[in-house]
């Protein structure tokens, strides 16, 4: 069934006369992995931000259904509790806040929302170790402050690690591949592949095709000027790699 349904979504920036999304339609089924590709400024990251509930964007028209419910009605933390996870393009540093404290609060808040018991300290640490092992995360990172002094690659890996910790129903990856060298990219892709499951949908936003060599998508969409202009399977990504976005742009212009 549809986990996420985006219908005719129009979005602008609050207090400014700028429109970024111009009627996005997208349906994502549980268990599926969709990739959204597009050039800079096409609105991909805005879509991710709107899904997570960032305040500075204003929804002008359209709707988003998540699990059949109106997602736009929910506060950002309620969305997280309902199982929406965003892997940030630029994860922020939280100086002095230990990864352990941060994730314990986060995991327990999500567990509580799901009607599960909170994890005590010992159980939590055990769980965190298991997940770190599974994701191949250097255990030292879990002893540091959240993202503080992490390299670019470590920050991105940490996002995927948090995804593994929080076990969301919908995981949105906002350009997680950008700025990664090939080893880090493979590591991140490995993590995502391990986390793919029948009960989880993925929306992967990317600029480049190369991550899709490692994470094979079920569907690929191309976004241009705030609209999805083309949808296909994994081969569409390869075509884009070969011909560039201009090809889609011309085609879209011709169709209009």
């Amino acid at each position, binding site marked *: 069934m549809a986990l996420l349904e985006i219908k005719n979504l129009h979005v602008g920036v609050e207090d400014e006369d700028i429109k970024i999304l111009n009627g996005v339609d997208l349906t994502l089924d549980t268990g599926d992995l969709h990739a959204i590709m597009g050039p800079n400024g096409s609105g991909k990251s805005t879509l991710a931000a709107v899904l*997570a*509930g*960032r*305040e*500075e964007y204003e929804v002008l028209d359209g709707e988003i259904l998540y699990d059949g419910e109106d997602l736009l009605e929910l*506060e*950002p*933390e309620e*969305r*997280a*509790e309902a199982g929406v*996870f*965003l892997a*940030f393009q630029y*994860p*922020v540093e*939280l*100086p*002095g*806040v*230990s990864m352990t*404290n*941060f*994730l314990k*609060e*986060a995991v327990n*808040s*999500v567990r509580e*929302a799901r009607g599960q018991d909170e994890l005590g300290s010992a159980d939590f640490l055990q769980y965190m170790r298991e997940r770190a092992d599974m994701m191949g995360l250097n255990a030292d990172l879990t002893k540091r*402050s*959240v993202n503080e002094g992490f390299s670019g690659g470590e920050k991105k890996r940490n996002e995927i690690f*948090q995804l593994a910790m*929080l076990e969301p129903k919908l995981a949105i990856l906002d350009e997680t591949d950008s700025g990664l060298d090939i080893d880090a990219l493979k590591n991140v892709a490995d993590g995502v592949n391990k986390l793919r499951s029948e009960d989880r949908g993925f929306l992967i936003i990317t600029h480049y095709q190369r991550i899709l060599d490692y994470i094979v998508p079920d569907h690929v969409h191309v976004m241009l000027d705030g609209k999805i202009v083309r949808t296909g399977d994994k081969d569409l990504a390869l075509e884009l790699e070969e011909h560039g976005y201009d090809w889609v742009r011309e085609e879209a212009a011709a169709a209009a």
Partner: protein
Amino acid sequence: MSTSETEYLKGKASEEYKHGWYTDIESEKAPRGLSEDIVRYISKRKDEPEWLTEWRLKAYRYFKQLIDSGHYPDWAHLDYERPDFENMRYFAAPNGQAQYESLDDVPDEILETFERLGIPLEEQKALTGVAVDAVMDSVSVATTFKEKLREKGVIFKSFGEAAKDHPELVRQHLGSVVPYTDNLYAALNSAVFSDGSFVYVPEGVTCPMELSTYFRINEAGTGQFERTLIVAEPGAYVSYLEGCTAPMRKENQLHAAVVELIAHEDSEIKYSTIQNWYPGDEDGNGGIYNLVTKRGICKGDNSKISWTQLETGSAVTQKYPSVILAGDNSVGEFYSVAFTKGHQQADTGTKMQHIGKNTKSTIISKGISADVADNSYRGLVKVSANADGARNFSQCDSMLLGPDCGAHTYPYIESNNPTAQIEHEATTSKVGDDQMFYCHQRGLGEEEALKLIVNGFCQEVLQELPMEFAVEAKELLDIELEGSVG
């Protein structure tokens, strides 16, 4: 900061102060106002030796001279009415008793008062590993674990008792670090000081437990003027903590303490404060004026003095716990979190005076300000001409919660020796929308997120607190933040 967060942070001050109740107990009070007679009265009530009465009188005369010539310490970034020294009481003894021989003599109301504050005075109920001196208004009501400490030769008793039992030690050190001529409030304190703690750790002894004094102001219209003196003989170690609370009242009350620390060769004194005096109501009425002089001297070589403070209370706070680094290779540290909200104002920091060779000082200050509060760091690092190889590192970070509060940093550096290495870093940050959103996206609500971020910001300082009190400190910060985000 976005609008919703601003609103969310508003009304911080309306959060109720937890320790604002009053114990209804008969109290013997000195008449209002200050004179030589009042000074003599206090000294007499405390059965003090003649030399101490004389010392008080000298301090009083100096104080009077400053007042008469209009010498008020008005230079700080603080805006408040000068205390009305003539309308204040300088001595209040709950139950009319200036001292207690044993815990059995202490009336139940007083025991209950401290029990309610989480400071049980019966040793079997007390936190193991912490000895407590409990001071209510002008009188020390009990000191726990005295026997156990005596076995090691550690003296831990109220100042009043110490002046009688160990006159030579008190006389030798009293006023040796903070002379009564230091400033107006030090002069006032020297004239009228009531109880406080005296600690003496003999040569080579590591004090076997944390020492702690809990100060409670109870009576209205009364100032509290405690005096604390800690002496660490060569090779000694002691960790001491003070905590403070007071009832909620409409008028301001004055708390003017003097603390002196003396560290001899190879010794170490760790002094921690959790200050939670009543901060006043949401309109800025009432609250404690916390005007305090704290200073330590690293007298001997290789000695160390470390100040750690968590300042969350008081309407006005002005204090600069300082270290005179006289001994070679001596070390001074200052770790501070000052949290001001509502109409609170704080001007706090430290002075590190490098005199000995290869002396080292570290200053870590975290100021957090909310509502319309004002928070200033003021610090001086001074290196004397002979202090070869002196090193200082200072870091002063300010965090603003909301658009109407203030944070200020006044670092002064005075170096007279070319070999000195002095580093200063300062940052001012707002709790960022990005940080809050990141936390929200992981399922944390406004309050949880803010607590996490602020606690993280203070972590470097909080981790310096003795373990027994670190939890209390974190809880206190959490409570402060709770109303802040309603």
